């Protein structure tokens, strides 16, 4: 029996490097494992407590801060067991800090941008947005990056620094939005009648808002047509389906009333033959 204890003791005391033995390595591993468990429990509890009280994006950020904060503390507490003294680290930190600082400035920049995005909240998960030249639905806002599912279904990861410094268009941040059609009718058609036809059609559509009311007016006397502007407000969540639906319906309704959309045309005047 004693032999077994002796063997275990000799294994635990076996020096790996610089005074660090197997027992130290096991302590380090145990601390890391316990830390990860504590971090996961804390993360779950943070979610349970805050779920009903804070928005999803903030909840995600809090979860991550809690989780990685505990991991960081545990890791720092465990470091001395593998031969890294914190005081030594602080001394070495000066030089290492500069080196790491240069190496990780992009990461830090993304991290800070991510924090500002979470505070400023120009976008939320599920919003339809355009960030720089990428348009789509926000799927996740992480500490370092934001992921977008583009309109055609492609996964795009954008570093938070780029998100933060880009022009952001959020299509659903406001409850309602406006879109516009330009519709040309023939010069011989009655523009007032056309306006009435379009107005009646728009009134029948549930998603075309009663207020702000649609605006329909003669905008321009064009080369080939009298151009009507049709401005419509719709709930931001459904505006695109309304936009794709209404243009054809307007065309059909106008034609039903004998009002036509003309082709481009040019009147050519033929000069008479000169008599010689």
């Amino acid at each position, binding site marked *: 029996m004693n032999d077994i204890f002796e063997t275990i003791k000799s294994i635990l005391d076996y020096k790996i490097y610089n005074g660090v033995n197997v027992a130290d390595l096991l302590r380090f591993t145990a601390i890391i494992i316990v830390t990860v468990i504590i971090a996961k429990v804390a993360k779950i509890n943070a979610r349970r407590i805050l779920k009903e009280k804070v928005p999803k994006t903030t909840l995600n950020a809090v979860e991550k801060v809690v989780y990685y904060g505990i991991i960081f503390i545990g890791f720092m507490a465990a470091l001395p067991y593998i031969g890294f003294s914190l005081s030594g680290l602080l001394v070495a930190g000066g030089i290492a800090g500069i080196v790491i600082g240069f190496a990780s400035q992009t990461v830090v920049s993304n991290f800070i941008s991510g924090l500002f995005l979470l505070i400023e909240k120009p976008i939320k998960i599920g919003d339809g947005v355009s960030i720089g030249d990428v348009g789509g639905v926000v799927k996740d806002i992480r500490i370092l990056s934001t992921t977008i599912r583009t309109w055609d279904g492609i996964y795009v990861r954008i570093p938070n620094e780029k998100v933060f410094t880009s022009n952001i268009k959020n299509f659903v941040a406001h409850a309602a939005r406006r879109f516009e059609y330009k519709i040309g009718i023939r010069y011989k058609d009655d523009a007032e009648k056309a306006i009435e036809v379009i107005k009646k059609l728009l009134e029948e559509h*549930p*998603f075309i*808002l009663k207020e*702000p009311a649609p605006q329909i007016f003669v905008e321009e006397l064009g080369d080939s047509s009298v151009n009507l502007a049709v401005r419509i*407000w719709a*709930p931001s*969540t*459904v505006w695109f389906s309304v936009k794709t639906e209404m243009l054809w319906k307007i065309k059909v309704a106008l034609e039903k009333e004998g009002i036509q959309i003309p082709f481009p045309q040019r009147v050519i005047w033929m000069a008479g033959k000169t008599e010689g």
Partner: protein
Amino acid sequence: MFGEYKLNVKIEEEDLKLLVEGRGKRKRYYRKVGEEEVEKFIHADKGKLVVCPVEPVNLPKEGVSEYLLVELDKPLIIEPKTESSVYLKFPIEIGVFLVDEIDVERIDIFTKTMPKYILYGPPESGIICKWWNSSVYNEIPEVDKLYEGILRLDVKNAYEEWVEIKKVVLRAIDMKIFYDGYAYMHASLKILKKSLGETTFFDRLPRGMKRAIDIYLAKGIKRLEKKFVMEWGFK
């Protein structure tokens, strides 16, 4: 029309046809209103069918709005520091539910009304509401029970000036709908300032009426706030 039915049932009223038919467990649900038809299969022995009015914000598409804005066809002017009650009408959406002792399953919602939406407040911070136009009645009005319900509105002007009311905004999650022959809600509007008020609903069951199934409770959505603040005025 509104009420609880056994799983084999046939209802025909005006242009509405609703039936559950079949033998044993295998049944067929069919509903037609106007030109719209819905057909589903139900495999069930126990349970019952409940047809009742629901919060009128689900059609034509869920999630667009959770508010009902009732616009008064003629404004109501109320003097300072007084209370008064009026009756309005609201649009009806009818829910069909399968109910047993444990669970409630919504199988259909339909309406005979023509839905329309409106923005209450400015585009950048306002809210989308389902819109309905109503006259103001001093007595309980007659209603087409499949088309409109009755909303009793207790108006309390707690402000020190005359206030003109042209619209009332009600939040669906707060609504308490009751039914007998017709759908009924009892709400209050408390005017706090010239263009600020709050709307709430009364939960007390009126005599002879039944409580409609609450879609939000059925979904498990908790009610944290019970008042809606009309911060963009009454005009």
